[in-house]
């Protein structure tokens, strides 16, 4: 149970090396299938991620970004390696502990939005806030992503960007420790992409949430504190930005 490590949200960006990392990853590998059909999605990844950071994962399609993110979020378990969340090994978590880890600590944003089609925007958010310990009001979460006007619309009545913003509102409404976003702008045009990223950035800044964003658009890297580039399941490059560029300034 990670609840004991429930740190108070800080508006100050912590510097690397001082605090205990949120995620401590060593030699993380994930191999799908067996024998001849085996696919190595992750081939030994080492990294430490800290509270308040905004991380961008870059890499070609199939390089293992989603696999890594899913590992961080406790959606899948590693084949080899260690993955510690605030000092606790996720591999030791049983189904119940994993469930509460996901419920209390992690906010997910999926590329395919994954909204419940039969629930309105507000209800999609409320669905999650109902099961969290200290959520914000669904209306507030939707306001944060600029969707106050469309709260009672069903997913089918919303554009892709709006649906993605609902998904972000759903993810942040629980005030997560970690916000994991898998190509949140993948299906969106530039302008819409920017509103979505601004929403993520705001959460990261205001709530001190560790945010990990997957993208294959290298330009987005400027908004991050650190940028990891993956290739064939390994981290091949780490870049540190001294200054984060505001999202609106990105030359997309």
């Amino acid at each position: 149970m990670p609840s004991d490590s429930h740190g108070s949200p800080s508006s100050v960006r912590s510097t690397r090396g001082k605090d205990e990392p949120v995620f401590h990853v060593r030699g993380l590998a994930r191999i799908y299938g067996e024998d001849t059909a085996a696919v190595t999605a992750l081939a030994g990844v080492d990294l430490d991620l800290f509270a308040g950071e905004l991380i961008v994962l870059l890499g070609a399609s199939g390089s293992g970004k989603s696999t890594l993110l899913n590992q961080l979020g406790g959606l899948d378990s590693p084949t080899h390696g260690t993955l510690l969340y605030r000092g606790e090994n996720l591999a030791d978590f049983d189904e119940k502990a994993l469930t509460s880890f996901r419920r209390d600590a992690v906010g997910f944003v999926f590329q395919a939005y994954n909204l419940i089609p039969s629930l309105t925007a507000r209800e999609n958010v409320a669905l999650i806030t109902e099961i969290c310990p200290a959520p914000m009001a669904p209306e507030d979460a939707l306001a944060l992503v600029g969707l106050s006007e469309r709260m009672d619309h069903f997913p089918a009545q919303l554009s892709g960007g709006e649906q993605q913003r609902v998904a972000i509102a759903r993810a942040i409404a629980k005030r997560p420790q970690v916000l994991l976003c898998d190509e949140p702008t993948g299906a969106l045009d530039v302008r819409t992409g920017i509103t979505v990223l601004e929403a993520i950035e705001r959460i990261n800044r205001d709530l001190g949430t560790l945010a990990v964003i997957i993208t294959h658009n290298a330009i987005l890297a400027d908004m991050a504190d650190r940028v990891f580039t993956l290739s064939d399941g390994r981290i091949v490059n780490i870049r540190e930005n001294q200054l984060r560029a505001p999202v609106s300034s990105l030359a997309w």
Partner: protein
Amino acid sequence: MSLLDRKLFRDLKALKSQAIAVALVMACGLAMMIMTRSLILSLATTRDSYYERFRFAEVFARLKRAPNSVREELAAIPGVARVQISIAIQVTLDVPGLMEPAVGLINSLPERGEPVLNRLHVRAGRLPAGRTAVGELAVGEAFAAAHQLKPGATLSAVLNGTKQPFRVTGVVLSPEFVFEAPPGAALPDNKTYGVFWMPYKELATAFQLYGAFNSVAITLDPGASEGAVIAAINRILAPYGGRGAYGRVDHPSHRRVDDEIRVLQGLSVAFPLVFLGVAAFMTNSVMSRQIALQREQIAMLKACGFGNRQIGLHYFKFSLAIVVGGVALGAVGGVILGYRLVEMYHLFFRFPQLDFILDGRVLLTAASVSALAAFTGVAGAVHRAVRLPPAEAMRPEAPARYQPALVERLGISRWFSPSFRMALRNIQRRPVRSGLTCLALALATAILIVPNSFRDGITYVIDFQWDIVQRQTVTLSLVEPGPARAIADFRHMPGVVWAEPFRFVPIELKAGPITRRLLLQGLPERGTLSRVIDAYPQQFTLPPRGIIMSAKLASVLQLSTGDSVNARVLEGREREITIPIVGLAEDFAGIACYMEIHALNRLLLEGDCISGAHVVVDKARWPQFLAGVKETPRIAGCIIKDSLREGFRKTTAESIGLLQKIYMLFATIVAFGIIYNSARISLSERARELATLRVLGFSRGEVGAVLVGELVVLTLVALPAGLIIGSAFAKGILTAVNTETVRLPLVLTAENYAFAVLVVASASAVSAVFAARKLADIDLVSALKALD
């Protein structure tokens, strides 16, 4: 309402037609179960409380005549609680408005007070006063209803050779005559046979029986041995012409009610279980599909921190909603139909009051059984869904592996259109699912066979019994067995074309502990009127010795051809004899045994004697014939074949017929439900694929053909299998409802099969049309958008 519940509610609304189809099928099974089980409970409860309140006796005996003082001897038998002695005499009646003579069984009412046993319930009017007035009698309700006799009506009866007028004072019911049928007859004939009551003194005096009795009813102390009491009674009554005492098992009215309960029991289990099984299968396929469609939603819920239990519960609630709908519908349907059937039973079971009693326990059991069935159906799908790691579930399902269908490899595929080939491959790709759908379709066909086989069985029995077995117009019985030459008198009666004699002797057959009392019928060696038919069905030539009995009777006695049966003659000089069984007769109503008439007379050590004659009457001279019958005092009874046939049609046939109609309705609903559901599910499974085909330029018709083709192939495979399964069902259920009162032969007609095929085919066609229309509604863009 929690948000997951709100999602549930909206998902249900989107799936409503399928949910309704499943709920309807479940409702049919439940309604049938609740209806039949409640009827059983109603009949049994009503009967038991009626017996109790009106003190229905437990042991009965008839005798020639014994002085009333013998009553004390009977009462002294250890184990006997109460004794009621009375007179019961069969007389000929002349009822206004009835051309033929009728037969009445007149029972005496005690001189003082109420009968100790077999008390009467006065439905209308009052009991005859006795002391003050003469010429009064009370009439049993069935006969009264058949002739619209109300208190104050009049009729005449021939008492000991003199015709006397009587006034009806009341209409009554007796626990002894819940079912009023002539002795030995399996079928009622309320027009020509009735039960009456009149004061002891008047009846006894008319027959010179005053101070004596010829009928005994007895109840036992708790724990007393019925067998021992019967033996004691027989010993005491033997010198008085005792005809052998018997218990309730052999009591004709009691037995008839029992048999009806047995028929209902046969129907109450097998059929509903099939329906409920089908409903469970449908719930499973609907839920599996729903869960497959919501794979990504489930993954998201898990990613967001919903536990397996919460998610599992969500889908269980989904099926629970269907079950609750089905149970509610089924309960209401079962109760309504139960009320309707109870009303029908009023027509031929005479209880003071027969109320519908809902069998709550069955309702509960049935509801939990179907809930359990639905849940087990869903459990697998839910388990698979929640076990999937969310990361996995988030990815679209792996594309299915297709291969050329088996039939294609036979090399005949060049005659198949691409659409049809796709349909074949779809079937082969998921053999289990296709197999289950096929099984469901086969069951839909099968359950359609059963009700119609009942109908055809009844028609066959009616034709068989009254065209092949009994070819006489009328059966005339003599007051007392008379010399054989009386047959000449019958042949000379006005209008009579031909007459053949018969000899009826009441006997008791014994095989080990099993006994049956019935009439042994003596018939001419190879008569043309009342014939004995074997299983093939050919007429028996009655051999000079030996007995031929109903196949059912033989199986009850656990005997067969070649064995010998012990018989006790219950008339005249009482004797024990052993007769070889020389053949088994095919008959469907009641149980009977036959002998060649001379052989029978030899066995009885009597000269050539007849009890009456079967006669064929010229319809043109029908009134003259009936007038002649009424003028012949020697003729006690006159049974008109056509009115027996009518009686059968109105009672047994009607009760089975109503059940048959209800079952038919249910079976049709179920067949439609299954097929519609299958079509919807394969539409949903193929929606994306079909939309893609449309985008690629296939016409709506070609795309529809893939879907319809699959359904057609499955239906074609299912139909013959269904006909076979249905025939087996029919056989099983007919065997289950096979009683000594009525048996239905397994008759499977081409019409029956054709009807089942027609219903299934049209259900398929309607479902296909519906699916094709849904197909047109598929929004191509959104169907593709879901692709990534």
